[in-house]
Protein backbone atom coordinates (compact mmCIF):
# COMPACT_ATOMS: atom_id res chain seq x y z
CA UNK A 1 0.00 0.00 0.00
CA UNK A 2 1.31 3.38 -0.91
CA UNK A 3 0.43 6.23 1.48
CA UNK A 4 -0.71 8.95 -0.81
CA UNK A 5 -2.64 11.08 1.62
CA UNK A 6 -0.92 11.49 4.95
CA UNK A 7 -2.32 8.92 7.29
CA UNK A 8 -2.72 9.66 10.98
CA UNK A 9 -2.13 6.92 13.49
CA UNK A 10 -2.76 8.50 16.85
CA UNK A 11 -1.53 6.46 19.79
CA UNK A 12 -1.11 9.02 22.53
CA UNK A 13 -4.51 8.64 24.18
CA UNK A 14 -3.11 9.03 27.68
CA UNK A 15 -2.24 12.61 26.72
CA UNK A 16 -5.55 13.41 25.02
CA UNK A 17 -8.53 11.57 23.59
CA UNK A 18 -11.11 13.00 21.22
CA UNK A 19 -14.57 13.45 22.62
CA UNK A 20 -16.87 10.65 21.44
CA UNK A 21 -19.65 11.54 19.05
CA UNK A 22 -22.57 10.54 21.30
CA UNK A 23 -20.90 12.30 24.22
CA UNK A 24 -20.59 15.60 22.39
CA UNK A 25 -24.13 15.23 21.15
CA UNK A 26 -25.40 14.71 24.67
CA UNK A 27 -23.55 17.81 25.84
CA UNK A 28 -24.62 20.25 23.16
CA UNK A 29 -28.05 21.28 24.50
CA UNK A 30 -26.49 22.31 27.79
CA UNK A 31 -24.38 25.10 26.37
CA UNK A 32 -27.06 27.40 25.08
CA UNK A 33 -30.48 25.86 25.52
CA UNK A 34 -30.60 24.16 28.92
CA UNK A 35 -28.14 26.53 30.43
CA UNK A 36 -29.70 27.38 33.79
CA UNK A 37 -27.79 27.20 37.03
CA UNK A 38 -28.66 23.98 38.86
CA UNK A 39 -28.74 25.81 42.19
CA UNK A 40 -31.60 28.10 41.25
CA UNK A 41 -35.07 27.83 42.75
CA UNK A 42 -37.09 27.65 39.54
CA UNK A 43 -38.05 24.92 37.08
CA UNK A 44 -35.28 25.63 34.55
CA UNK A 45 -32.75 25.09 37.33
CA UNK A 46 -34.45 22.03 38.87
CA UNK A 47 -34.38 20.34 35.51
CA UNK A 48 -30.63 20.88 35.20
CA UNK A 49 -30.16 19.76 38.77
CA UNK A 50 -32.00 16.54 37.99
CA UNK A 51 -29.94 15.95 34.86
CA UNK A 52 -26.78 16.55 36.87
CA UNK A 53 -27.79 14.03 39.50
CA UNK A 54 -28.53 11.48 36.78
CA UNK A 55 -24.97 11.88 35.55
CA UNK A 56 -23.64 11.48 39.06
CA UNK A 57 -25.49 8.19 39.28
CA UNK A 58 -23.96 7.01 36.00
CA UNK A 59 -20.44 7.84 37.13
CA UNK A 60 -21.12 6.15 40.46
CA UNK A 61 -22.37 3.07 38.68
CA UNK A 62 -19.23 2.76 36.58
CA UNK A 63 -17.16 2.31 39.75
CA UNK A 64 -19.70 0.65 42.04
CA UNK A 65 -20.21 3.70 44.25
CA UNK A 66 -23.28 5.53 45.50
CA UNK A 67 -24.14 8.78 43.72
CA UNK A 68 -23.60 10.89 46.83
CA UNK A 69 -20.04 9.61 46.96
CA UNK A 70 -19.13 11.37 43.71
CA UNK A 71 -17.79 14.93 43.52
CA UNK A 72 -17.36 16.44 40.08
CA UNK A 73 -14.04 18.22 39.55
CA UNK A 74 -12.41 20.00 36.63
CA UNK A 75 -9.80 17.32 35.99
CA UNK A 76 -8.04 14.26 37.28
CA UNK A 77 -5.40 16.55 38.70
CA UNK A 78 -8.01 18.47 40.68
CA UNK A 79 -9.48 15.20 41.94
CA UNK A 80 -6.02 14.15 43.13
CA UNK A 81 -5.41 17.49 44.79
CA UNK A 82 -8.81 17.39 46.46
CA UNK A 83 -8.25 13.83 47.69
CA UNK A 84 -4.89 14.62 49.25
CA UNK A 85 -5.31 18.17 50.45
CA UNK A 86 -8.94 17.60 51.42
CA UNK A 87 -8.01 14.64 53.57
CA UNK A 88 -4.96 16.22 55.16
CA UNK A 89 -6.61 19.56 55.92
CA UNK A 90 -9.71 17.89 57.33
CA UNK A 91 -7.57 16.49 60.16
CA UNK A 92 -4.81 19.00 60.05
CA UNK A 93 -1.73 17.93 61.95
CA UNK A 94 -3.46 15.01 63.62
CA UNK A 95 -0.93 12.81 61.83
CA UNK A 96 2.00 14.12 59.89
CA UNK A 97 3.16 11.57 57.39
CA UNK A 98 1.93 11.10 53.84
CA UNK A 99 2.95 8.00 51.92
CA UNK A 100 2.83 7.97 48.14
CA UNK A 101 4.45 5.69 45.61
CA UNK A 102 7.47 6.98 43.74
CA UNK A 103 5.62 6.72 40.43
CA UNK A 104 2.58 8.87 41.12
CA UNK A 105 1.38 11.53 38.74
CA UNK A 106 2.73 15.04 39.39
CA UNK A 107 -0.63 16.09 40.76
CA UNK A 108 -0.30 13.52 43.54
CA UNK A 109 3.43 13.94 44.14
CA UNK A 110 3.25 17.71 44.28
CA UNK A 111 0.09 17.79 46.37
CA UNK A 112 1.88 15.62 48.91
CA UNK A 113 5.08 17.64 48.76
CA UNK A 114 3.08 20.81 49.29
CA UNK A 115 2.66 19.63 52.87
CA UNK A 116 6.40 19.40 53.44
CA UNK A 117 6.42 23.11 54.06
CA UNK A 118 3.63 22.61 56.56
CA UNK A 119 5.85 20.26 58.57
CA UNK A 120 4.61 17.03 57.10
CA UNK A 121 6.92 14.24 56.07
CA UNK A 122 6.33 12.69 52.68
CA UNK A 123 7.56 9.15 52.17
CA UNK A 124 7.99 7.84 48.64
CA UNK A 125 7.48 4.12 48.36
CA UNK A 126 9.97 2.61 45.92
CA UNK A 127 8.83 0.27 43.19
CA UNK A 128 10.52 -2.75 41.65
CA UNK A 129 11.91 -2.82 38.12
CA UNK A 130 8.45 -3.54 36.77
CA UNK A 131 6.95 -0.64 38.62
CA UNK A 132 5.16 -2.66 41.28
CA UNK A 133 4.91 -1.10 44.71
CA UNK A 134 6.36 -3.30 47.39
CA UNK A 135 3.57 -4.11 49.85
CA UNK A 136 6.08 -5.26 52.47
CA UNK A 137 7.71 -1.88 52.34
CA UNK A 138 4.33 -0.26 52.82
CA UNK A 139 3.75 -2.36 55.93
CA UNK A 140 7.11 -1.33 57.35
CA UNK A 141 6.56 2.33 56.60
CA UNK A 142 3.00 2.70 57.89
CA UNK A 143 2.77 4.07 61.38
CA UNK A 144 0.44 5.80 63.81
CA UNK A 145 1.49 9.08 62.37
CA UNK A 146 0.36 8.32 58.80
CA UNK A 147 -2.43 10.58 57.61
CA UNK A 148 -2.93 9.19 54.12
CA UNK A 149 -1.55 6.72 51.62
CA UNK A 150 -1.93 7.37 47.90
CA UNK A 151 -0.96 4.76 45.34
CA UNK A 152 -2.14 4.91 41.77
CA UNK A 153 -4.22 2.17 40.20
CA UNK A 154 -2.46 2.16 36.82
CA UNK A 155 0.63 4.05 35.78
CA UNK A 156 0.28 6.18 32.68
CA UNK A 157 3.95 6.05 31.69
CA UNK A 158 4.87 2.40 32.06
CA UNK A 159 1.40 0.84 32.21
CA UNK A 160 1.87 -1.14 35.41
CA UNK A 161 -1.28 -1.97 37.39
CA UNK A 162 -0.81 -1.94 41.15
CA UNK A 163 -2.42 -4.44 43.55
CA UNK A 164 -4.76 -1.85 45.04
CA UNK A 165 -7.00 -4.20 46.98
CA UNK A 166 -4.02 -5.62 48.84
CA UNK A 167 -2.44 -2.21 49.47
CA UNK A 168 -5.71 -0.71 50.71
CA UNK A 169 -6.21 -3.63 53.07
CA UNK A 170 -2.80 -3.03 54.63
CA UNK A 171 -3.65 0.62 55.19
CA UNK A 172 -7.02 -0.17 56.71
CA UNK A 173 -5.44 -2.59 59.15
CA UNK A 174 -3.70 0.47 60.50
CA UNK A 175 -6.78 2.68 60.17
CA UNK A 176 -5.08 4.83 57.54
CA UNK A 177 -7.21 6.19 54.67
CA UNK A 178 -6.26 5.10 51.18
CA UNK A 179 -6.50 7.03 47.93
CA UNK A 180 -5.94 5.72 44.44
CA UNK A 181 -5.56 7.64 41.19
CA UNK A 182 -7.55 5.70 38.60
CA UNK A 183 -7.16 8.19 35.74
CA UNK A 184 -5.15 5.68 33.74
CA UNK A 185 -7.41 2.69 34.41
CA UNK A 186 -10.88 4.15 34.22
CA UNK A 187 -12.86 2.68 31.38
CA UNK A 188 -10.43 -0.07 30.42
CA UNK A 189 -9.93 -1.87 33.74
CA UNK A 190 -12.84 -2.91 35.89
CA UNK A 191 -13.17 -0.79 39.01
CA UNK A 192 -15.36 -1.50 41.99
CA UNK A 193 -14.62 0.79 44.89
CA UNK A 194 -16.34 -1.52 47.38
CA UNK A 195 -14.39 -4.51 46.22
CA UNK A 196 -11.11 -2.58 46.12
CA UNK A 197 -12.12 -1.05 49.45
CA UNK A 198 -10.57 2.35 48.74
CA UNK A 199 -11.56 5.54 50.54
CA UNK A 200 -10.88 7.92 47.70
CA UNK A 201 -10.51 7.37 43.95
CA UNK A 202 -9.77 9.94 41.24
CA UNK A 203 -10.89 9.76 37.66
CA UNK A 204 -10.86 12.01 34.66
CA UNK A 205 -13.13 12.60 31.67
CA UNK A 206 -10.84 12.38 28.64
CA UNK A 207 -9.84 8.70 29.00
CA UNK A 208 -13.55 7.91 28.72
CA UNK A 209 -14.13 10.07 25.68
CA UNK A 210 -15.52 12.96 27.75
CA UNK A 211 -14.07 16.41 27.20
CA UNK A 212 -11.11 18.03 28.89
CA UNK A 213 -12.13 20.06 31.91
CA UNK A 214 -14.11 17.41 33.73
CA UNK A 215 -13.15 14.77 36.28
CA UNK A 216 -14.49 13.30 39.48
CA UNK A 217 -13.51 12.13 42.90
CA UNK A 218 -15.10 9.21 44.64
CA UNK A 219 -15.01 9.57 48.40
CA UNK A 220 -16.41 6.93 50.66
CA UNK A 221 -19.47 8.03 52.63
CA UNK A 222 -18.52 9.79 55.85
CA UNK A 223 -14.95 10.38 54.72
CA UNK A 224 -13.77 13.71 56.04
CA UNK A 225 -12.87 16.04 53.26
CA UNK A 226 -12.05 19.73 53.31
CA UNK A 227 -12.94 21.45 50.02
CA UNK A 228 -10.09 22.36 47.72
CA UNK A 229 -12.21 25.02 46.04
CA UNK A 230 -14.20 26.71 48.75
CA UNK A 231 -17.47 28.29 47.76
CA UNK A 232 -21.14 27.82 48.25
CA UNK A 233 -23.28 24.75 48.51
CA UNK A 234 -22.41 23.17 45.18
CA UNK A 235 -21.46 19.50 45.36
CA UNK A 236 -22.94 19.48 48.87
CA UNK A 237 -20.44 21.99 50.09
CA UNK A 238 -17.43 20.03 48.94
CA UNK A 239 -16.58 21.99 45.81
CA UNK A 240 -17.53 25.58 45.12
CA UNK A 241 -18.15 27.20 41.77
CA UNK A 242 -20.95 26.93 39.27
CA UNK A 243 -21.05 23.36 38.06
CA UNK A 244 -19.71 22.62 34.58
CA UNK A 245 -23.01 21.19 33.41
CA UNK A 246 -22.06 20.33 29.81
CA UNK A 247 -18.89 18.67 31.06
CA UNK A 248 -20.83 16.75 33.67
CA UNK A 249 -23.32 15.57 31.05
CA UNK A 250 -20.38 14.51 28.90
CA UNK A 251 -18.82 12.58 31.74
CA UNK A 252 -22.12 10.90 32.57
CA UNK A 253 -22.70 9.83 28.99
CA UNK A 254 -19.10 8.63 28.64
CA UNK A 255 -19.38 6.65 31.88
CA UNK A 256 -22.54 5.01 30.62
CA UNK A 257 -20.86 4.04 27.34
CA UNK A 258 -17.76 2.83 29.17
CA UNK A 259 -19.81 0.67 31.50
CA UNK A 260 -21.53 -1.12 28.64
CA UNK A 261 -18.44 -1.65 26.50
CA UNK A 262 -15.68 -2.20 29.03
CA UNK A 263 -15.08 -5.88 28.48
CA UNK A 264 -14.97 -5.78 24.68
CA UNK A 265 -12.95 -2.64 24.74
CA UNK A 266 -10.34 -4.11 27.06
CA UNK A 267 -10.12 -7.26 24.94
CA UNK A 268 -9.64 -5.22 21.77
CA UNK A 269 -6.98 -3.07 23.39
CA UNK A 270 -5.13 -6.07 24.78
CA UNK A 271 -5.00 -7.65 21.34
CA UNK A 272 -3.57 -4.50 19.78
CA UNK A 273 -1.17 -3.95 22.65
CA UNK A 274 0.21 -7.47 22.54
CA UNK A 275 0.65 -7.31 18.79
CA UNK A 276 2.48 -4.00 19.07
CA UNK A 277 4.73 -5.24 21.87
CA UNK A 278 5.64 -8.42 20.02
CA UNK A 279 6.27 -6.60 16.77
CA UNK A 280 8.48 -3.96 18.34
CA UNK A 281 10.50 -6.30 20.51
CA UNK A 282 11.02 -8.63 17.58
CA UNK A 283 11.38 -6.00 14.90
CA UNK A 284 13.86 -3.62 16.48
CA UNK A 285 17.07 -4.71 18.20
CA UNK A 286 18.11 -3.31 21.56
CA UNK A 287 14.66 -2.30 22.72
CA UNK A 288 13.27 -2.98 26.19
CA UNK A 289 9.68 -3.13 27.36
CA UNK A 290 9.12 -0.86 30.36
CA UNK A 291 6.67 -1.60 33.14
CA UNK A 292 5.15 -4.93 33.98
CA UNK A 293 5.02 -7.57 31.23
CA UNK A 294 1.59 -8.87 32.34
CA UNK A 295 0.07 -6.62 34.99
CA UNK A 296 -0.36 -3.73 32.62
CA UNK A 297 -3.02 -1.48 31.18
CA UNK A 298 -4.85 -3.12 28.26
CA UNK A 299 -3.97 -0.35 25.82
CA UNK A 300 -0.48 0.48 27.02
CA UNK A 301 2.80 -0.41 25.34
CA UNK A 302 5.95 1.36 26.49
CA UNK A 303 9.59 0.87 25.64
CA UNK A 304 13.09 2.22 25.90
CA UNK A 305 15.05 2.18 22.67
CA UNK A 306 18.81 2.29 23.04
CA UNK A 307 21.06 5.05 21.72
CA UNK A 308 18.39 7.50 20.59
CA UNK A 309 16.51 10.33 22.18
CA UNK A 310 12.74 10.34 22.60
CA UNK A 311 11.81 13.85 21.54
CA UNK A 312 13.63 13.42 18.24
CA UNK A 313 12.05 10.01 17.86
CA UNK A 314 8.50 11.21 18.53
CA UNK A 315 9.01 14.15 16.25
CA UNK A 316 10.27 12.08 13.37
CA UNK A 317 7.44 9.59 13.85
CA UNK A 318 4.94 12.42 13.80
CA UNK A 319 6.31 13.42 10.41
CA UNK A 320 5.07 10.04 9.31
CA UNK A 321 1.68 10.63 10.91
CA UNK A 322 2.41 8.43 13.92
CA UNK A 323 1.75 9.97 17.32
CA UNK A 324 3.16 8.63 20.56
CA UNK A 325 4.72 9.99 23.75
CA UNK A 326 8.04 9.87 25.56
CA UNK A 327 9.41 10.29 29.08
CA UNK A 328 12.78 11.50 27.78
CA UNK A 329 14.46 14.32 29.67
CA UNK A 330 14.78 16.41 26.52
CA UNK A 331 11.02 16.27 25.97
CA UNK A 332 10.22 17.66 29.40
CA UNK A 333 10.15 21.37 30.11
CA UNK A 334 12.39 20.85 33.14
CA UNK A 335 14.80 18.68 31.11
CA UNK A 336 14.50 15.92 33.65
CA UNK A 337 14.04 12.26 32.95
CA UNK A 338 10.57 11.09 33.90
CA UNK A 339 10.73 10.29 37.63
CA UNK A 340 8.73 7.16 36.85
CA UNK A 341 11.47 5.76 34.62
CA UNK A 342 14.05 6.72 37.25
CA UNK A 343 12.04 4.98 39.95
CA UNK A 344 12.02 1.79 37.88
CA UNK A 345 15.80 1.95 37.94
CA UNK A 346 16.17 2.63 34.23
CA UNK A 347 19.50 4.36 33.56
CA UNK A 348 19.19 7.92 32.30
CA UNK A 349 20.73 7.27 28.88
CA UNK A 350 18.36 4.41 28.21
CA UNK A 351 15.44 6.44 29.55
CA UNK A 352 16.24 9.00 26.86
CA UNK A 353 14.95 6.48 24.35
CA UNK A 354 11.55 6.20 26.04
CA UNK A 355 8.48 5.79 23.85
CA UNK A 356 4.92 5.27 25.07
CA UNK A 357 1.96 4.11 22.99
CA UNK A 358 -1.51 4.42 24.50
CA UNK A 359 -4.21 2.86 22.39
CA UNK A 360 -7.92 3.32 22.09
CA UNK A 361 -10.95 1.55 20.65
CA UNK A 362 -10.46 3.53 17.47
CA UNK A 363 -7.04 2.02 16.85
CA UNK A 364 -6.76 -1.07 14.70
CA UNK A 365 -4.32 -3.77 13.68
CA UNK A 366 -3.79 -1.72 10.54
CA UNK A 367 -2.43 1.06 12.72
CA UNK A 368 0.08 -1.34 14.21
CA UNK A 369 1.08 -2.47 10.72
CA UNK A 370 1.51 1.09 9.63
CA UNK A 371 3.62 1.83 12.69
CA UNK A 372 5.83 -1.14 12.04
CA UNK A 373 6.38 0.03 8.50
CA UNK A 374 7.87 3.28 9.78
CA UNK A 375 9.20 2.89 13.29
CA UNK A 376 12.18 0.60 12.53
CA UNK A 377 13.39 2.95 9.79
CA UNK A 378 13.05 6.00 12.00
CA UNK A 379 14.97 4.30 14.77
CA UNK A 380 17.65 3.30 12.32
CA UNK A 381 17.97 6.84 11.01
CA UNK A 382 18.41 8.29 14.47
CA UNK A 383 20.83 5.62 15.50
CA UNK A 384 22.87 6.30 12.39
CA UNK A 385 23.56 9.77 13.71
CA UNK A 386 24.06 8.76 17.33
CA UNK A 387 27.55 8.85 18.80
CA UNK A 388 26.67 6.06 21.16
CA UNK A 389 25.61 3.62 18.45
CA UNK A 390 28.37 1.71 16.65
CA UNK A 391 28.34 -1.55 14.70
CA UNK A 392 24.62 -2.09 15.21
CA UNK A 393 24.86 -1.91 18.98
CA UNK A 394 24.99 0.69 21.69
CA UNK A 395 28.54 1.71 22.58
CA UNK A 396 28.13 0.50 26.11
CA UNK A 397 25.20 -1.62 27.06
CA UNK A 398 23.42 0.44 29.62
CA UNK A 399 20.49 -1.74 30.51
Amino acid sequence: MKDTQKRIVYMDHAAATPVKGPVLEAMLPYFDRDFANPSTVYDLGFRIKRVMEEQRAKVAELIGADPEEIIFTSSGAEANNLAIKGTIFSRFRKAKRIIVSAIEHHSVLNSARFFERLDYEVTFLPVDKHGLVDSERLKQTLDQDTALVSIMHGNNEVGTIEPIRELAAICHEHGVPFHTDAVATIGSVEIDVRDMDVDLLSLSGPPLGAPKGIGALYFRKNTRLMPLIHGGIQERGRRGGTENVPGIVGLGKAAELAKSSLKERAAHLRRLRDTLITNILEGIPHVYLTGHPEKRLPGHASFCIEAIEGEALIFMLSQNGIYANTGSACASKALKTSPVLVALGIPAALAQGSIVFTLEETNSLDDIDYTMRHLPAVVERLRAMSPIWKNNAPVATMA
Partner: protein
Amino acid sequence: MYTEKVMEHFASPHNVGVIENADGVGEVGNPVCGDMMTFYIKVKDGIIEDIKYQTFGCVAAIAVSSQVTDMVKGKSIAEAKALTKKAVAEALGGLPKEKMHCSNLGAEALLEAIKNYEASISGEPAPAIQKSKRPKRHKICGSCGVKNPITANFCMGCGKGLE
Protein backbone atom coordinates in the same frame (compact mmCIF):
# COMPACT_ATOMS: atom_id res chain seq x y z
CA MET B 1 7.25 25.40 19.03
CA TYR B 2 10.19 24.91 16.63
CA THR B 3 10.87 27.25 13.73
CA GLU B 4 10.64 26.22 10.09
CA LYS B 5 14.39 26.35 9.91
CA VAL B 6 14.80 23.94 12.83
CA MET B 7 12.33 21.58 11.23
CA GLU B 8 14.17 21.71 7.91
CA HIS B 9 17.47 20.84 9.52
CA PHE B 10 15.85 18.09 11.54
CA ALA B 11 14.10 16.64 8.52
CA SER B 12 17.34 16.46 6.52
CA PRO B 13 20.32 17.25 8.67
CA HIS B 14 23.50 18.22 6.86
CA ASN B 15 26.90 16.70 7.42
CA VAL B 16 25.88 13.88 9.68
CA GLY B 17 28.53 11.27 10.26
CA VAL B 18 32.05 10.49 11.29
CA ILE B 19 35.32 11.63 9.71
CA GLU B 20 37.78 8.80 10.00
CA ASN B 21 41.24 10.22 10.76
CA ALA B 22 39.77 13.58 11.70
CA ASP B 23 42.23 16.35 12.58
CA GLY B 24 40.18 17.22 15.62
CA VAL B 25 37.42 15.54 17.62
CA GLY B 26 35.29 17.25 20.21
CA GLU B 27 32.80 15.58 22.45
CA VAL B 28 30.47 17.27 24.91
CA GLY B 29 27.59 16.13 27.02
CA ASN B 30 27.30 12.72 28.50
CA PRO B 31 24.99 9.90 27.68
CA VAL B 32 24.31 9.40 31.39
CA CYS B 33 22.66 12.78 31.41
CA GLY B 34 21.03 12.25 28.10
CA ASP B 35 22.65 14.65 25.67
CA MET B 36 25.81 14.00 23.73
CA MET B 37 27.39 15.60 20.68
CA THR B 38 30.58 14.70 18.88
CA PHE B 39 32.14 16.89 16.20
CA TYR B 40 34.85 15.84 13.76
CA ILE B 41 36.88 18.37 11.75
CA LYS B 42 39.32 18.17 8.87
CA VAL B 43 41.53 21.27 8.68
CA LYS B 44 43.71 22.47 5.82
CA ASP B 45 45.64 25.76 5.83
CA GLY B 46 43.68 27.01 8.82
CA ILE B 47 40.41 26.35 7.03
CA ILE B 48 37.81 23.84 8.16
CA GLU B 49 37.63 21.78 5.04
CA ASP B 50 35.24 19.21 6.29
CA ILE B 51 33.11 18.83 9.38
CA LYS B 52 30.80 16.10 10.53
CA TYR B 53 28.98 15.26 13.74
CA GLN B 54 27.02 12.73 15.62
CA THR B 55 24.29 13.71 18.02
CA PHE B 56 22.38 11.87 20.69
CA GLY B 57 19.79 14.40 21.66
CA CYS B 58 16.63 16.22 20.88
CA VAL B 59 15.28 17.84 17.75
CA ALA B 60 16.99 21.10 18.67
CA ALA B 61 20.31 19.40 19.32
CA ILE B 62 20.21 17.76 15.89
CA ALA B 63 19.22 20.99 14.14
CA VAL B 64 21.90 22.89 16.03
CA SER B 65 24.57 20.39 15.00
CA SER B 66 23.52 20.64 11.41
CA GLN B 67 23.41 24.42 11.56
CA VAL B 68 26.85 24.67 13.17
CA THR B 69 28.43 22.61 10.42
CA ASP B 70 26.78 24.80 7.78
CA MET B 71 28.09 27.90 9.49
CA VAL B 72 31.72 26.91 9.80
CA LYS B 73 32.40 24.62 6.87
CA GLY B 74 34.95 26.37 4.64
CA LYS B 75 35.58 29.00 7.32
CA SER B 76 38.84 29.69 9.11
CA ILE B 77 39.58 28.31 12.53
CA ALA B 78 39.49 31.87 13.88
CA GLU B 79 36.03 32.43 12.46
CA ALA B 80 34.85 29.10 13.78
CA LYS B 81 36.16 29.92 17.24
CA ALA B 82 34.16 33.13 17.23
CA LEU B 83 30.88 31.24 16.73
CA THR B 84 28.57 31.83 19.67
CA LYS B 85 25.54 29.86 20.78
CA LYS B 86 23.55 33.01 20.23
CA ALA B 87 24.58 33.17 16.58
CA VAL B 88 23.60 29.53 16.14
CA ALA B 89 20.21 30.01 17.75
CA GLU B 90 19.60 33.11 15.65
CA ALA B 91 20.54 31.34 12.45
CA LEU B 92 17.86 28.81 13.35
CA GLY B 93 15.30 31.55 13.72
CA GLY B 94 15.33 31.15 17.49
CA LEU B 95 14.93 28.26 19.88
CA PRO B 96 12.50 27.65 22.72
CA LYS B 97 13.93 28.97 25.98
CA GLU B 98 14.45 25.56 27.52
CA LYS B 99 16.28 24.45 24.38
CA MET B 100 18.89 27.21 24.34
CA HIS B 101 21.36 24.93 26.07
CA CYS B 102 21.28 22.67 23.01
CA SER B 103 22.77 25.47 20.92
CA ASN B 104 25.39 25.84 23.62
CA LEU B 105 26.25 22.16 23.22
CA GLY B 106 26.84 22.70 19.51
CA ALA B 107 29.19 25.66 19.93
CA GLU B 108 31.03 23.86 22.70
CA ALA B 109 31.51 20.63 20.80
CA LEU B 110 32.94 22.57 17.88
CA LEU B 111 35.31 24.41 20.20
CA GLU B 112 36.42 21.14 21.76
CA ALA B 113 37.16 19.75 18.31
CA ILE B 114 39.22 22.85 17.46
CA LYS B 115 41.12 22.65 20.75
CA ASN B 116 41.78 19.00 20.09
CA TYR B 117 43.12 19.88 16.62
CA GLU B 118 45.27 22.73 17.99
CA ALA B 119 46.71 20.54 20.71
CA SER B 120 47.61 17.88 18.17
CA ILE B 121 49.42 20.29 15.80
CA SER B 122 51.26 21.98 18.70
CA GLY B 123 52.60 18.50 19.52
CA GLU B 124 51.08 18.53 22.96
CA PRO B 125 49.08 15.58 24.09
CA ALA B 126 45.45 16.10 23.23
CA PRO B 127 43.62 17.32 26.30
CA ALA B 128 41.49 14.71 27.87
CA ILE B 129 38.11 15.30 26.41
CA GLN B 130 36.04 17.40 28.71
CA LYS B 131 37.13 15.53 31.80
CA SER B 132 36.47 18.44 34.07
CA LYS B 133 33.02 18.88 32.68
CA ARG B 134 31.97 15.33 33.24
CA PRO B 135 29.23 15.63 35.80
CA LYS B 136 28.65 13.46 38.81
CA ARG B 137 26.90 10.29 37.86
CA HIS B 138 25.26 9.55 41.17
CA LYS B 139 23.54 10.97 44.16
CA ILE B 140 24.37 9.18 47.36
CA CYS B 141 21.43 8.99 49.72
CA GLY B 142 22.20 10.67 53.03
CA SER B 143 19.96 8.29 54.96
CA CYS B 144 20.87 4.85 53.68
CA GLY B 145 23.94 5.38 51.54
CA VAL B 146 22.46 3.90 48.37
CA LYS B 147 23.76 5.21 45.01
CA ASN B 148 20.99 6.82 43.03
CA PRO B 149 20.78 8.04 39.45
CA ILE B 150 21.74 11.68 39.19
CA THR B 151 18.22 12.48 38.05
CA ALA B 152 16.53 10.86 41.04
CA ASN B 153 14.37 13.04 43.27
CA PHE B 154 14.18 10.46 46.01
CA CYS B 155 16.23 7.51 47.11
CA MET B 156 15.69 4.26 45.26
CA GLY B 157 16.74 2.44 48.40
CA CYS B 158 14.79 3.98 51.22
CA GLY B 159 12.43 6.39 49.49
CA LYS B 160 13.69 9.55 51.21
CA GLY B 161 13.76 12.74 49.17
CA LEU B 162 17.12 13.67 47.62
CA GLU B 163 18.22 17.24 47.03
